[in-house]
């Protein structure tokens, strides 16, 4: 057991820190630091800078841009990126569909999609959830019926985050409604979002933002060549994808960064022992989470996920939300001035505090709700 990073890992950390704080424009990093909304261009510009430096898809297979890093190096990369307020590479591209295509796609699909996905020349959207298939994803009903060299897709997806920017959407569709188990009749299909019959409709959220969408499919014709892997094996690929999604799902670095900024903003209110105690408590809870993430990382070297990994999503989102609550409290009554423009006498951070708090109620719902995480802990770890 050893506290310090090895010399090589410490040097790696410095290298990452230097890159993220000098090579990604301050203009973009300040958007993250100030918790304003990133534009599509901000996200694309950042990912291209990272991709050019080999830092967009380090976990992919080497042949497609992966770096062969250790789990600890990947963790350091992710943490330093968040601490430097660098927008992370688009998860739909780099953590979700990319690894699935790399693992299960045809050579032709790999060549066609992977470089464009890494460089965000294609912006991917996720088409998993449906109005009647949330936590119970396998009851999805969007159907794909084979018609010659095409599938004809009908149905509806929902909660499609940033679907308004999407060029392509990776979907789970039902290809065998008669399969003996509902998990067995599902396929993983890539769909061009400019296809006739595909419509994207925004869902307005309680924070006033429009970050999620509904996607409707009406007789959308999708070439069979866009099927990933085998027909009716889509559930296997989805599980692989969700497993990747949970890695790095504890937003430690970004929560630390927001908490540090909150501390700067709090200024002399830190003299209030109650306020100071809240910071001390959150910092300690966050440290325990970060250390648990490090334990998971250190023990994942043999490819087997550490049992404690299920803690990360659950606790990570709780703390992420707790920090947004702290900012709401620090903002006080001024925080309701959310609609004021930059001429407002209320500082920008206070104006966004409540919308961000409301927005982050999503964190304990997406990616397997926290109740699903408890189910996993109780079932697979505790044997209940």
């Amino acid at each position, binding site marked *: 057991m*050893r*506290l310090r990073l090895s010399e090589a890992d410490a040097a790696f950390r410095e290298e990452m820190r230097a890159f993220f704080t000098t090579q990604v424009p301050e203009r973009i990093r300040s958007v993250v630091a100030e918790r304003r909304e990133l534009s599509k261009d901000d996200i694309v510009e950042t990912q291209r800078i990272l991709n050019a430096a080999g830092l967009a898809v380090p976990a992919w297979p080497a042949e497609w841009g992966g770096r062969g890093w250790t789990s*600890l190096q990947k963790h350091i990369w992710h943490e330093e990126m968040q601490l430097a307020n660098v927008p992370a590479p688009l998860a739909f591209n780099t953590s979700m569909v990319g690894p699935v295509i790399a693992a299960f796609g045809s050579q032709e699909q790999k060549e066609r999609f992977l470089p464009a996905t890494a460089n965000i020349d294609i912006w991917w959207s996720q088409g998993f959830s449906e109005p009647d298939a949330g936590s119970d994803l396998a009851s999805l009903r969007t159907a794909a019926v084979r018609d010659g060299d095409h599938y004809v897709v009908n149905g509806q997806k929902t909660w499609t985050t940033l679907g308004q920017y999407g060029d392509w959407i990776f979907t789970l569709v039902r290809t065998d409604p008669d399969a003996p188990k509902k998990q067995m009749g599902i396929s993983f299909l890539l769909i061009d979002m400019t296809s006739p019959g595909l419509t994207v409709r925004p869902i307005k959220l309680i924070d006033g933002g429009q970050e999620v969408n509904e996607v409707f499919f009406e007789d959308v014709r999708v070439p069979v060549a866009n099927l990933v892997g085998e027909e009716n094996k889509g559930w296997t690929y989805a599980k692989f994808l969700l497993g990747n999604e949970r890695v790095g799902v504890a937003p430690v670095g970004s929560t630390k960064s927001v908490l540090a900024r909150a*501390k700067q903003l709090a200024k002399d209110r*830190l003299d209030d022992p109650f306020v*100071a105690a809240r910071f001390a408590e959150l910092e300690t809870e966050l440290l325990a989470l970060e250390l648990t993430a490090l334990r998971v990382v250190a023990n994942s070297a043999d490819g087997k996920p550490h049992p404690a990994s299920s*803690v990360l999503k*659950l606790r990570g989102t709780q703390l992420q939300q707790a920090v947004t609550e702290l900012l709401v409290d620090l903002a006080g009554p001024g925080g309701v001035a959310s609609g004021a423009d930059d001429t407002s006498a209320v500082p920008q951070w206070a104006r966004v505090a409540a919308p961000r708090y409301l927005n982050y109620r999503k964190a304990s719902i997406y990616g397997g709700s926290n109740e699903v995480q408890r*189910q996993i802990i109780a079932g697979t770890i505790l044997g209940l």
Partner: protein
Amino acid sequence: MDFELDDEQTALRDAVRRLLASTYASIDGRRAATAKAPGWDEGMWGRLAEMGVLGLPFTEEDGGMGAGPVEVALVAEQLGRVLAPEPFAEAVVLACGLVAAAGSAEQKEHLLPGVVDGTTVAAFAHFEPGAAAGTPPRSVTATQDGDGWLLDGVKEPVLHGAQAGVLVVSARVDAGGTDRTGLFVVATDAAGLDRVDYPTYDGIRAARVTFASTPAAPLGAAGADASDVLALVTAHAQVALCHEAVGAMATALDLTTEYLRTRKQFGVPLKTFQALTFRAADMYVSLELARSMALWATLVLADGDPDAAVVAATRAVVQTSAAGRHIGQEAIQLHGGIGMTAEYAVGHYTTRLTAIDQLLGGRTAHLKALADHVGEYDVVDPLAV
């Protein structure tokens, strides 16, 4: 950053686990050991000494094993897992730790061998009636008397204070109008020393120790302020106790999940009820977070910076205290009435976790210590403390 044990550490952990299982496989072992003097199993204490466990934290020069905080943590967790009543953290890490850290070469040579070989047990008399956690000694005073020193006042509770053969005592020393903290060694047959023994609610022994012009020898250089060494050794003992708590929490959770699997109500096992299994899942979360923090604090101790060690121990206490309360309370609640009984094991775990929490000083005091300095840095970096 590495949380893996090396082969020797794994062997030590396994050997201690096997040894403890010989006596404490069930709660009856603890019941039997705590029912008679001295409040732990003397045979077990002797075997721990033979294994070198009682000398783990001390240098080979001092007659110890030259091991470090990691080895101490492994042992403490194993003791906690079976609720072994042997006073490892209190006697070895804390009381003897003070002798090793502050004592003169002569004192170490005189006091440590008997402790390491298990023939003598040391106690640290520090808590004072009515004093808040973490405060320096006030009511017990040390005054110079010619070449020697005299102690006056009351220490209570002193864990296994009546059973100890070596008493280390903290005292207020008046140094020309300002108070210093002094550490002293008192012989158990010293004049004016009175020890009243009683049991604690978690089944171990404690004492009220009264000093009335009791002769005492300063630990190390006479008159030196011992605040820093006291803070550092206390940090080591706190982290050891955190590991003992982690061990106890792990078993409390094991007992609880086993109960949920086997106990039937309404014709079905309790684990059928999600209202119960979700609470067990939250107990697991608390346990793993506390374990991570205790492990990290151990690594910070091993890294050697004394200021960082004190802060890390404080963070570990904050986490352990919350987790111990949570897991202890839920372990009883999920068992129902049986968890309240002295007959059944799980309540003893809650009892011991409560005692550890009190001995650690509790969450509020430690949180305050952190809150007082929260404006002095941006972020907590676990790798650069």
